[in-house]
């Protein structure tokens, strides 16, 4: 299909689609052997580390701060600022790499680990140098066997070549990078849960405050938790300077970012896009992106930023993929994952697939998430199965309000017409898993209540609920 733009895919990088765009973190993807040290070194690998080691840690830290590199794990916190949160004079400090990618819709960190592990290792080393970190743990999701093999092989090569470990590149800089295996738990992507897991415990999020593991983290010591994609950007910044990085993208979110677009599109794929300049319409309909909805059908809805994000419809297509605009519009970019639903989609069933996920992944620490997630799952399941009653829809909202108070003052508000989605939600849980179980229900019921109604066969009026709604107003 010739639409005037060159688009390239490579069988060895399944899902990745390169276009006529700058590539920072995927620059080696065309090479089948991009994961080897030989190919890495031939294509500028570890040059960023060499450049960094010629400058003081403080200078490199400042360079990263000036690049305004934003965290790519979901929260979008500036990496340079995060590093600066470690208390002065406290040691040891640890770096924990979050490679536990598992947010529904998200597929990018795995690709970066499988295709360019040396870029990630180099990023870890630059972070350790700049932030004065004593040891690095690379936590890779358990289910990703290939990523673990590629990183293990890359680390073995890098240790043998004097690039990791004692006296790196002949300098006094000495730091170990230890590959750690996860074993399957979505919640471990939350940084304090990741730390608990790395300590050998059940991977449950810690109570906050303290809010930042930078102050109290692994073994109670200052700990920086960075996402794989975030760290993969560092070699470019260290090698080319922050000005070269901020020249790409926009002032509020510089550089590029990896976005996976999946679901009912003609060409689902992982794209490295220039930050801020690409709209959802470009992503879904663009010739060098997804080329529209499969079979020329109409768009019904899309999830803009991973399973936890409130949904958008065609009305929001012209928003740029930019946190500062998506946030006020009532959702988030999260981990760079767009899931597209066409007009044939059974909306309640689609919402259930996400609620199932979060209910399953609840760690059980907070009651509203543990119980509420299961309630949402059970109620929604019977609605989808055609066994629901009309009271079930209000019940879904009531349960949700116990996880996310304020999302709905009480059930009757759904009959009164809803205000703009109050996002980010207030929450009664320690972490975002609980609200995430409700987000798809909330979105689907707000946008497509008629589809839920159509599945209700039993119309019964339940006086108790009506009374509590009438009497429980705020």
């Amino acid at each position: 299909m010739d639409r005037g733009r060159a688009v390239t895919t490579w069988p060895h990088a399944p899902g990745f689609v390169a276009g006529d765009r700058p590539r920072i973190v995927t620059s080696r993807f065309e090479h089948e052997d991009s994961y080897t040290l030989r190919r890495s070194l031939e294509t500028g690998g570890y040059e960023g580390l060499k450049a960094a080691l010629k400058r003081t840690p403080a200078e490199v830290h400042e360079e990263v701060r000036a690049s305004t590199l934003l965290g790519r794990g979901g929260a979008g916190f500036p990496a340079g600022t995060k590093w600066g949160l470690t208390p002065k004079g406290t040691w040891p400090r640890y770096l924990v790499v979050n490679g536990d990618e598992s947010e529904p819709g998200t597929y990018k960190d795995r690709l970066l680990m499988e295709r360019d592990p040396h870029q990630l290792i180099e990023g870890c080393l630059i972070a350790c140098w700049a932030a004065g970190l004593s040891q690095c743990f690379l936590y890779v999701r358990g289910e990703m066997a290939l990523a673990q093999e590629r990183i293990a092989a890359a680390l073995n090569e890098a240790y043998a070549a004097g690039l990791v470990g004692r006296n790196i590149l002949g300098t006094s800089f000495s730091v170990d990078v230890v590959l750690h295996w996860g074993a399957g738990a979505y919640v471990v992507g939350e940084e304090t849960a990741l730390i608990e897991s790395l300590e050998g415990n059940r991977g449950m999020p810690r109570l906050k405050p303290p809010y930042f593991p930078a102050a109290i983290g692994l073994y109670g010591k200052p700990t920086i938790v960075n996402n794989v994609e975030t760290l993969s950007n560092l070699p470019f910044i260290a090698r080319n300077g922050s000005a070269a990085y901020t020249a790409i993208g926009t002032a509020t979110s510089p550089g590029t970012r990896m976005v996976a677009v999946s679901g009912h599109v003609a060409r689902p794929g992982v794209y490295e896009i220039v930050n801020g300049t690409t709209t959802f319409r470009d992503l879904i309909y663009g010739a060098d992106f997804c080329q529209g909805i499969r079979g020329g059908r109409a768009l019904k809805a899309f999830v803009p930023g991973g399973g936890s994000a409130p949904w958008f419809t065609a009305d929001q297509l012209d928003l740029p993929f930019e946190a500062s605009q998506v946030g006020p519009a009532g959702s988030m970019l999260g981990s760079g994952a767009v899931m597209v639903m066409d007009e044939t989609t059974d909306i309640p069933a689609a919402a259930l697939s996400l609620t199932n996920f979060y209910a399953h992944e609840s760690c059980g620490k907070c009651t509203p998430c543990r119980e509420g997630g299961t309630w949402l799952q059970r109620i929604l399941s019977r609605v989808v199965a055609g066994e629901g009653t009309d009271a079930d829809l209000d019940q879904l909202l009531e349960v949700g309000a116990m996880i996310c108070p304020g999302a709905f003052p009480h059930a009757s508000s759904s009959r009164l017409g809803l205000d703009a989605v109050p996002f980010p939600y207030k929450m009664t849980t320690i972490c975002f898993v609980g609200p995430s179980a409700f987000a798809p229900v909330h979105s689907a019921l707000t946008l497509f209540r008629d589809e839920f109604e159509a599945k209700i066969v039993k119309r019964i009026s339940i006086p108790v609920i009506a009374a509590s709604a009438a009497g429980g107003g705020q």
Partner: protein
Amino acid sequence: MSRLSEDNVRLAAEIIGRYPRPKSALVPLLHLAQEQDGWVTRDAMVHIAELVGTTPAEVYGTATFYEMFRFEPVGRYLINICGTMSCQLMGAHELMERASERLGVKVGGTTPDGTFTLAHAECQAACTEAPCLQVNYRYRYRVTPEQIDQLIDDLAAGRLDGEIPPHGVLARVRQSIPPERFVGAPEPDAHATGPAWIGDAQ
């Protein structure tokens, strides 16, 4: 019912040595145990408790939190079919039905000959390649129901033995740090000053 083999005990010691606290090695050691026996046995958990200096209850507590650990025998091939949104939209349900019918087991079940276990999985981070599945954590992308039949035939006939190891074997390449290159795990409570290379910079 087995404790870790001598080789695995050596490997375990090496892994434990990389962490500031031995208990951090718990999950990697549980993977070792699962690799050895195909599932995590009670004896292995008791042995791991001895190796990291904690109680069997602690080991059991941690182990049972994580999806991947199995506490009873599973098939040689664990087929995990993803059912989260992108895969659900692209036909995961049909895949599961076909696999269940073809294997003659329900979701979660193991074939009587112990070759296959069929399981439902949550998002596998391959959403653009939906619907997807994993066999012993090795991916298959954009799978059609017909391909399920072929995959099961190939696995049963041993035609994928080179690519897909038996359940429990995770990464076939392990990290190995040469002792002379190893810096050493810094003791958290040593009240250390900064590493030598950081100097007075921070």
